[in-house]
């Protein structure tokens, strides 16, 4: 696949994603012209691009879709659920066609082609037909037109290609036999009729016996595409004038053809009639329309001249002509977009990021030394430098980060389709879409998420009646949430359905011998059984999912990303899957504090304020913060840090999960941007510490997991309660 095609495929995929999102939006707010325009633009860009890479099957298919969109945009047809469904299916089909293009096959496989035809057929019958000039038969994509309203008259009803061929005078001298091309042409189809034009033949005296004066008008029935027909004449391409009109071309195109050829228009017209390309009536209409257009020369924007040029140069198929102006603009826009995008290899980026990481640590070391030296000028210079280094690091890290929102938005479609199929009413609530994570992680998390989402819709959320009976709103709720949790990104897929059936899972597990009989398991252990290979409690297996089927795959996929997946469930209230992925590249703004000899980093977005610990706080575990009771924890106590307690202590007021708390530390060391380094498997059971980072001095500082710390502190006084819980 060449580079242009690669770019085309990538960009078209993006366009399709945008189109799909817009279509879903359209369903909610029909008639929104901005959305409609966006959809149209996407389809149009794809078609234009497909024309550029000469991918005819995409052009042909997209063309019809675009027609429908155009009518939609012009208000000729109204938006309804069915139309959106068909258009969504069309966008899927275009995606499939892109796969075909990507795989390098010359044309889609028969079944795909049939799918496409069926879709077009639905579009034609449901929305496009009954619009005057259109033929209501379903035209196969490769030859589909028949819906375009042309500038110079209606559509010519013929199933055959029309080829106008004029051989150059030198053809014979170059040792090529014009007839052999015609013979070869028959390998692609059948020549229905052929007229030989000897008009260029001079008088006998002037005739050069070695020159070729012949031209041919050929009426050609074939299922081959234009490019294939053109290839027949590749050898004489430079030596001949070749015009190919696809079946059902517009009359205007024939007129343009007639004008483009050297012979007298009337004579040519007659020949065209004779070969069967046109009927006499059509010719008359065409020529009359042509004259009329010429008379109104002022208002010809997409009229013959432009068409002529395009047809002549064989840049595009004639169907594209009427869109040419828009297209040119689009191509221009696309070029600009290409210029803004650089695609580079991920390895190079990784190498850069590694280097920048080292640079940051080295820079921090320099800073430290400068501060110790006490030279004001040196300190100033290094602080400028470190600011620059930090900006470099930020930009470098941002290069790999993408927002997860795009991945989440894909699920709008999934939820819509699957819930429709199952007859459930489900809303998807997305939060934390702006959470960024590494591109490679985003790519790989899609499949596991898809599985969880489908599972939740199929099995998690009960049918409306069951929900109503349980006193829940009929509309099910599925939520996707993402957030950074120091050192990891946490993605939650939660539904408000019936929850996991603990008894059933336990029973199945015993039956399958996964757990020895009579063994008591904690809830958590029972729920985690659903990740066992082949484990399913579903009584019936639907075509969507059977809860448990494939959950082991989900787990494996997530583990291959060095992540973890956990499930939590409340009977009658729903199920929540928590995927925790390491985010080695994540940077957080941290607030560095000191306790004992060690440094700790509190994620800055959790810090509310800092204050000195009032001496009267004493041994109590709360203080008075402007009239508010603020519980606090001493890091020294919690972490059992040895050493002398300083005279003055400070409180960092943090807020996590809506709860405010204070963390008492020795020193406040200030803001600090940190590259999170996960602590590794050995510390996976450690709560309260989310990761680590390397300070400028080369020392390792621990990143506090504030939420877990508060949790730890909150339950410190009630150990029994915890034991019961876990």
């Amino acid at each position, binding site marked *: 696949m060449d580079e242009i095609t690669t770019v085309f495929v990538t960009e078209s995929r993006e366009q399709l994603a945008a189109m799909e999102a817009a279509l879903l939006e359209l369903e909610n707010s029909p008639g929104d012209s901005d959305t409609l325009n966006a959809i149209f633009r996407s389809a149009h860009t794809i078609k234009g691009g497909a024309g550029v890479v000469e991918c005819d099957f995409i052009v042909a298919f997209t063309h019809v879709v675009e027609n429908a969109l155009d009518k939609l945009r012009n208000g000729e047809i109204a938006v309804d659920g069915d139309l959106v469904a068909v258009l969504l299916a069309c966008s899927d089909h275009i995606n499939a066609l892109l796969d075909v293009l990507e795989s390098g096959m010359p044309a889609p496989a028969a079944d795909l082609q049939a799918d496409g035809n069926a879709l077009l057929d639905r579009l034609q019958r449901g929305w496009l037909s009954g619009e005057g000039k259109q033929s209501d038969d379903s035209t196969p994509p490769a030859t589909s037109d028949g819906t375009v309203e042309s500038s110079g008259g209606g559509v010519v009803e013929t199933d055959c290609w029309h080829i106008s061929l004029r051989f150059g005078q030198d053809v014979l001298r170059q040792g090529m036999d014009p007839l052999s091309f015609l013979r070869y042409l028959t390998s692609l189809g059948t020549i229905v009729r052929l007229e030989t034009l000897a008009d260029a033949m001079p008088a006998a005296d002037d005739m050069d016996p070695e020159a070729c004066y012949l031209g041919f008008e050929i009426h050609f029935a074939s299922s081959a595409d234009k490019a294939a027909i053109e290839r027949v004449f590749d050898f004489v391409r430079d030596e001949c004038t070749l015009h190919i009109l696809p079946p059902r071309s517009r009359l205007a195109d024939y007129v343009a053809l007639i004008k483009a050829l050297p012979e007298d228009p009337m004579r040519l017209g007659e020949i065209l009639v004779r070969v069967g390309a046109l009927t006499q009536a059509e010719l008359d209409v065409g020529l009359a329309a042509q004259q009329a257009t010429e008379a109104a020369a002022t208002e010809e924007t997409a009229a013959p001249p432009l068409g002529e040029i395009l047809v002549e140069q064989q840049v595009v198929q004639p169907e594209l002509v009427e869109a040419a102006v828009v297209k040119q603009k689009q191509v221009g826009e696309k070029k600009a977009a290409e210029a803004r995008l650089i695609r580079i290899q991920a390895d190079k980026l990784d190498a850069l990021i590694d280097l920048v990481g080292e640079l940051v640590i080295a820079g921090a070391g320099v800073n430290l030394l400068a501060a110790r030296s006490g030279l004001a000028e040196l300190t100033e210079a290094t602080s400028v430098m470190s600011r620059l280094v930090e900006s470099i690091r930020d930009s470098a890290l941002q290069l790999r980060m993408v927002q997860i929102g795009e991945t989440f938005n894909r699920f709008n479609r999934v939820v819509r389709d699957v819930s429709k199929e199952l007859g459930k009413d489900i809303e998807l609530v997305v939060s934390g879409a702006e959470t960024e994570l590494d591109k490679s992680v985003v790519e790989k998390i899609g499949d596991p998420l898809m599985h969880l989402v489908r599972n939740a819709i199929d099995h998690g959320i009960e049918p409306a009646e069951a929900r109503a009976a349980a006193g829940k709103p009929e509309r099910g709720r599925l939520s996707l949430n993402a957030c950074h949790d120091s050192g990891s990104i946490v993605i939650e897929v939660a539904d408000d359905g019936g929850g996991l059936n603990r008894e059933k899972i336990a029973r199945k597990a015993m039956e399958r011998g996964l757990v020895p009989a009579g063994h008591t398991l904690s809830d958590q252990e029972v729920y985690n059984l659903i990740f066992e290979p082949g484990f399913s409690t579903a009584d019936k297996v639907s075509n969507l999912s059977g809860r448990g089927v494939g959950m082991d795959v989900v787990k494996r996929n997530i*583990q291959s990303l060095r992540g973890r997946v956990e499930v939590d469930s409340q009977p009658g209230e729903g199920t929540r899957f928590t995927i925790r992925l390491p985010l080695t590249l994540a940077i957080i703004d941290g607030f560095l504090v000191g306790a004992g000899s060690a440094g700790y980093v509190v994620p800055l977005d959790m810090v509310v304020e800092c204050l000195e610990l009032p001496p009267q706080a004493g041994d109590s575990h709360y203080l008075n913060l402007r009239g508010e009771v603020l519980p606090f924890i001493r890091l020294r106590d919690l972490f059992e840090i040895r050493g002398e307690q300083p005279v003055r202590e400070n409180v960092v007021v943090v807020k996590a999960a809506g709860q405010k708390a204070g963390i008492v530390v020795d020193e406040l060391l200030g803001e600090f941007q940190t590259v999170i380094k996960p602590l590794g498997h050995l*510390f996976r059971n450690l*709560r309260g*510490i989310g990761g*680590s980072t390397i300070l400028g001095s080369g020392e390792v500082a621990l990143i506090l997991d504030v939420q877990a710390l508060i949790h730890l502190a909150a339950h410190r006084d009630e150990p029994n309660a915890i034991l019961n819980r*876990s």
Partner: protein
Amino acid sequence: MGQIVARDNKPLAAAAAEAPQQYLTFTLNAEIFAIGILHIKEIIEYGSLTEIPMMPAFIRGVINLRGAVVPVIDLSARFGGRQTEIARRTCIVIVELVQTVEDGELRQDIGIMVDSVNEVLEIPATDVEPPPAFGSRIRTDFIRAMGKVEGRFVIILDLDRVLSVEEMAQLGATADASAPATDNAG
């Protein structure tokens, strides 16, 4: 690395039949231990170490090894003794292990704290004896074999057992759960 794994996975009998292996010997509480050198990445001086709270005593903390955060295990404490005291010759031996944990294969660098490193020596396969059934001061499953060096026995450690991440993490969790100020050990 593949070579190391292959060798480690072989039964002892097969390994014994092979050519003499090289071992690094080190001292811990005046006793000499040996580990196969193929595990070892480097040996560094004991430097600034960050303690990790709420962890069992044998997990001393983490160090920064050229940008990577590497956990350091106190072998003495791991063997059930007291914590190693830092002295002039205290070293951290960085070993690389590939272990099977619940989440699949895990490759990890781990530092082990020793009182001092002695030398690299070759112990012929004929001088390697199976571990005693009892009588040693450390857990028998930690012992891979006994090597005879100059008439003395040195304990050749089975690092995969000694530094089993899975087991140590479990121990960490238990230590965690037994402390009053914790939750969700399960």
